[in-house]
C-alpha cells in the first residue's frame, strides 16, 4: 500500500513536471500576443480603408470592369478568412483595373472631343469652299 502510494505520488509528480514544462514551452508571452493582435488589427484597418476606396471606384459604372469586381469579391473572401496580405494584393489589382479603364475611357472621350472640333473646323472650311466655288462658277457663266 505504502509503495503504491509512493509510486502514484512519483507518477503524479513527474506528470506535473512534464505538464508544466510543456505549458511553459507552448505558452506565448503576453507582449508577443499583443504584438500579433496589433498587427492583425492594423492589417484589418488597412484593408478596410483600401476596401472603401475600391468600393467607391467600383460604384462608378463608367469605370468598373468585371475583372475588377471579381478581384474585389476574392479580396473580401480572403479577408474573411483572415488572409489580409493576399486580400490587399487582390484589392490593389482591382483598383489598378479600375484605373486602367478610367484612363481608357477618358482618353477615348478626349479624342472624340478633339475629333468633333477638327470635324467642325474643316467641315466649315469645306462647306464655305464648295459654296464659294459654286458662286465663282455662276459668276463666270
Amino acid at each position, binding site marked *: 500500500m505504502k509503495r503504491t502510494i509512493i509510486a502514484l505520488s512519483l507518477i503524479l509528480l513527474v506528470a506535473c513536471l512534464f505538464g508544466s514544462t510543456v505549458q511553459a514551452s507552448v505558452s506565448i508571452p503576453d507582449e508577443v500576443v499583443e504584438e500579433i493582435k496589433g498587427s492583425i488589427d492594423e492589417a484589418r484597418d488597412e484593408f478596410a480603408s483600401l476596401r472603401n476606396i475600391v468600393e467607391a471606384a467600383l460604384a462608378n459604372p463608367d469605370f468598373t470592369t468585371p475583372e475588377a469586381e471579381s478581384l474585389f469579391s476574392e479580396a473580401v473572401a480572403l479577408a474573411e478568412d483572415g488572409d489580409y496580405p493576399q486580400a490587399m494584393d487582390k484589392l490593389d489589382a482591382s483598383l489598378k483595373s479600375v484605373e486602367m479603364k478610367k*484612363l481608357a475611357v477618358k*482618353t477615348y472621350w478626349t479624342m472624340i*472631343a478633339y475629333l468633333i472640333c477638327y470635324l467642325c473646323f474643316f467641315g*466649315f472650311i469645306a462647306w464655305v469652299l464648295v459654296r464659294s466655288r459654286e458662286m465663282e462658277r455662276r*459668276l463666270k457663266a
Partner: protein
Amino acid sequence: MNEQESMKKGYNSGVFSPLVLLAFGIVGTLMLLWDTQLIFSARTEMEAVMGMIQKIFYFHVPSAAAGFLAFLVVFIASIVYLRNGSRVADIWAEAGAELGMMLTLLVLLTGMIWSRYSSWGVWWAWEPRQMTVLFLFLIFVTYVILRRSIHQPVKRGKFCAVLGIIGFLNTPLVYFSTKFGGLHPMLNSGDEGSSLTESMQSTFGISMLIITLFCAFLLLLRVRQGMLDDAVREKEASS
C-alpha cells in the same frame, strides 16, 4: 467707285485673295496640328485630379473666347449696318454669326464631354454657365434661321442686325454666369480646373493664340463667300 463695285473687286484682292487665304489656311492648319501635338506631349503635364479629360480645356476655352470675338464682330458690323446700311457690314455680321454659332456649339459639346467624365458625372448639369451658353447658341441659331427666312435684303439686314446686337449683349451674362453659383470651374480661382502649372499655362496661351488666328482665317473665308454670294445675286438680278 460705289460699295458694290469695290466689293466685286474685294473678294479677289488683299486678305481675300485666294492665294493669301490658301497660305493662311496651310499655316493655320499646321499650327493647329502642332498645337494638338503640344497638348498631348509630355511637355504639358497631366492634371492630377481629372487626368486626360482635362486636355479638352485647351480647345474648349479658346473656342469660347474665339466665339465671343466672332459675336463682337457681329455686334460691331450690325451697328455699322444700322447706321449706314453697308452691305459689307451685313456680310461681316452674317459670317461672324455663323462662325460664332459653330464655335458655341463646339463649346457646348466639349463642355458636355468634360462635364460627364470629369467630376460632375453628368452630360448636362443645368448650371448657370451651361444654360447661358445654350441660350447664346439658340439666339444665333435663330439669327441664322431668320437670315434664311427673309428674302427682302434691307428688311433682313435690319432684323438680323437688331438680333445680332441683342445676341452679343448676352455674352457678358455668359462670362459672369459663374458668379451666380454653379459648378463651372473658373480660371485663377484656385478650384478644380484652374490649378494650372507653368507648362499648362504656356500651352494654354499657345492654344488661345493659334485657335483665335485659325478662327480669323475661317471668318475671312466666310466673308469672301458672302461677297461672292452678293456679286452673284447682283448679277442675276441685273440680267
